[in-house]
């Protein structure tokens, strides 16, 4: 590389390494992005892409030996102020906007306002400054509205406009994290154009992505990381999706990859979804049979996060859900439960646990009346009942019905929540991230419990970002993309790599069979 080329690069990183204890998060990664270039940074979870971004943002201090040049000048590392002063501007996935403030105020966050001679804010100048900034990106919005009321793509535009504003030094490079993750199709298109505009103005763009749509539509080139190492940087033109998947995953995927072939007996249809939709999901059809375990996979923004709640029926939805042939009303968790549907929600602390109440009270929450006789809830039979369940699920320490929920480890807490629902002998068991924050031992126990529930005739739905978990327990895996059930993997097709590839692949033209 000639020095002339180096001088025109927006960003030049050489030998970035970062070690956390025993783990090498980044191993000697070098990348270079030219001014006005749009580069995608791609790789599986844990490949090192967010570590690299955090080093550039000054959040992490990298190992010595690294050299970073921004627009030809050396960057002081480990200092967020230096990163910003050098011209690196970041927009994170949550955008960093304050919802109840308007665009003008949000754009002034961290920068200050234009004031006039008497030190009062010049609102007129501020407003036109905001409007101009957004117009330069191709957006025209009401700058006086709270940003929470704007559309998602408009909010992203505001965040980018703020990042792009002059502050001492002009921006040299815009770094985006999953920019279209939460955007529906048409809004994503607007964003592609916005990024094009930014690049045309001479500012380089680096974006981290899981979505191949973004990569192929926005980027000129793509850098692939795997296990902390740089695999390659390629131009997007001429690159096929299969080649990109191969770079990300590390090997050629065969047509029928070896995987688990569970031979479970499947009974009659228990759960049927027709045209079900919610906030991020639309037109979902799904059927689950007795004894079957169906998985749901998908990246953030694909709608996977909503499927469990939709199937349970506890929220507003469109479309129809039939349990044993009878329609389930929406927004009535108590009726869903009465019809035999159980939901073990994600994020148990927020959604399932009564943390400072006893295990007994947590387990009997759904049916506390079971041990009432002559109008009095009998504690002793209740304790025996609960003890049986604590035993069955191997909750440790054993037999402690009066322990408070917050005295248990995460894995044991999750087992208690599971006990709450298995005690109801549900015909449909819906699990959302069942082993989130759970240790290895408890994880295996929970998977065995899922097997047992299915063996006893329950229809089980498992929504999870843990692809190994899906491989372990599922007979079928539904892949969610952009709010729709895009694909179904069956039998031998269910492998970790296949699931990963399917969740980040492009939208297929045909809906799932």
């Amino acid at each position: 590389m000639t020095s002339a080329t180096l001088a025109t690069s927006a960003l030049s990183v050489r030998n970035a390494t970062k070690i956390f204890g025993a783990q090498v998060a980044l191993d000697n990664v070098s990348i270079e992005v030219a001014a006005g270039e749009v580069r995608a940074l791609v790789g599986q979870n844990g490949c090192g892409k967010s570590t690299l971004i955090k080093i550039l943002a000054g959040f992490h201090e990298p190992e010595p030996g690294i050299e970073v040049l921004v627009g030809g000048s050396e960057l002081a590392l480990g200092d967020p102020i230096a990163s910003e002063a050098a011209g690196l501007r970041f927009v994170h996935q949550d955008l960093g906007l304050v919802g109840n403030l308007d665009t003008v105020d949000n754009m002034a966050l961290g920068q200050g306002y234009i004031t006039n001679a008497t030190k009062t804010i010049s609102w007129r100048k501020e407003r036109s400054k905001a409007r101009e900034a957004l117009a330069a990106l191709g957006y025209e919005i009401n700058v006086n509205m709270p940003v929470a009321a704007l559309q998602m793509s408009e909010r992203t535009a505001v965040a980018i406009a703020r990042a792009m504003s002059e502050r001492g030094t002009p921006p040299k490079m815009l770094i985006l994290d999953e920019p279209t993750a939460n955007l529906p199709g048409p809004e994503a298109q607007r964003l592609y154009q916005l990024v094009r505009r930014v690049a045309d103005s001479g500012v380089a763009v680096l974006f981290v992505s899981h979505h191949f749509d973004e990569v192929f539509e926005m980027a000129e080139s793509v850098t692939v990381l795997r296990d902390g190492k740089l695999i390659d940087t390629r131009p997007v033109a001429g690159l096929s999706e299969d080649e990109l998947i191969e770079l990300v995953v590390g090997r050629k995927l065969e047509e029928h990859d070896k995987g688990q072939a569970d031979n479970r007996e499947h009974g009659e249809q228990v759960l049927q979804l027709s045209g079900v939709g919610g906030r991020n999901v639309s037109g979902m059809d799904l059927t689950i049979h007795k004894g079957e375990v169906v998985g749901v996979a998908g990246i953030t923004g694909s709608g996977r996060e909503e499927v469990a709640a939709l199937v349970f029926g506890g929220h507003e939805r469109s479309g129809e859900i039939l349990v044993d042939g009878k329609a389930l009303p929406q927004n009535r968790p108590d009726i869903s439960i009465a019809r035999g549907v159980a939901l073990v929600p994600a994020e148990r602390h927020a959604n399932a646990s009564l943390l400072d109440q006893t295990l007994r009270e947590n387990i009997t929450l759904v049916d506390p009346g079971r041990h009432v006789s002559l109008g009095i809830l009998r504690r002793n039979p209740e304790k025996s009942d609960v003890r049986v369940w604590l035993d069955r699920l191997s909750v440790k320490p054993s037999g402690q019905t009066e322990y408070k929920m917050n005295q248990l480890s995460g894995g044991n807490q999750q087992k208690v929540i599971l006990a709450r629902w298995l005690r109801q002998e549900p015909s449909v068991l819906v699990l959302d991230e069942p082993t989130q924050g759970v240790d290895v031992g408890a994880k295996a126990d929970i998977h065995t419990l899922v097997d047992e529930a299915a063996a006893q005739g329950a229809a089980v739905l498992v929504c999870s970002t843990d692809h190994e978990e899906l491989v372990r327990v599922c007979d079928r895996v539904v892949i969610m993309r952009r709010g729709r059930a895009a694909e179904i993997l069956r039998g031998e097709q269910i492998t970790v790599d296949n699931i990963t590839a399917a969740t980040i692949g492009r939208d297929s033209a045909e809906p799932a069979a």
Partner: protein
Amino acid sequence: MSEIKEVAAPRRRINFGFDKYSGIYVWALLVLIFALWIPDLFLQTSTLKQVLTFQAISAIVALGLLLPVAAGAFDLTIAGTLTVSVCFTAWALTNGHGVVVAAGGSILIGIVIGLVNSLVVVKLKVDSFIGTLGMSSVLIAIAYMITDSSQIVLSTSGYAPFFEFARTEMFGLPRSVYYAALIALFFWWILEYTPGGRYLYAVGGNPVASRLAGVRVGRVTMIAFISSGVTSAFAGIVYLSTIGTATPDSGSGYLLPAFSAVFLGATQIRPGRVNVPGTLVAIFLLATGVTGLQLAGAPSYVTQLFNGAALIIAVALASRTARRQG
């Protein structure tokens, strides 16, 4: 993830914190102090009787407050409901209506107030503190309307049967004390031994989780507010039967003591949650302290001092206990 905490205490530490029976110890200590300080005034059966009678109405109001607080809501209308009930009952009695209409009407008013509170908090989603604060102001205005901004006095001769309701003594104590005991027993049964009690605590602990577990959160909250309204209305009837005068000011002194008792009670007997026995211990404790000081000649504002300080100390100790356990 946190590991399992060792429950069996391996080290003996002097526990200066509030343990679950400390209220009883403190009460015993207070009795000791007053017995030594002013023995002839304090150690009389009439003192005990005074304490109990004085506290019966307060206890009823505090017990009614337990259900909304268990369900995670504040009910600041308890004093206002008591006042409206007192004024309405007095007005009805002095305007030719029988006891049944007067008392029945007050209970009905209590139900309506509870319904309005639930409408505001559940349907309109107004924060319960703000909603009931506003409502309590409305109730005071209603009390002024009923009494025409003055007071209504029930003559002892004219309304003797009505006064018997609370004042008649059984085994040396007025009936109002027994009413309080019965209500305590009733709510204790509800909170400890019925599914309803479980639902109340669940809604107070984690409404999202409760809803997903099939608990009808709105309905539970509504029932809590209605029972608080009815209980406060009943307290009003007992008040009028005990004291005999109705003014728009009748209930104002009952709000803070009820909250003090409920929150101080949450640190006792069944620490970590509001509960009936704990509330009773707290009421007794506060009443003994106040009565002792008044007998010793302290000015009447010592009540407010005691109750206010107790509320602050109780909540501070409760969060300290919660942090130690969690």
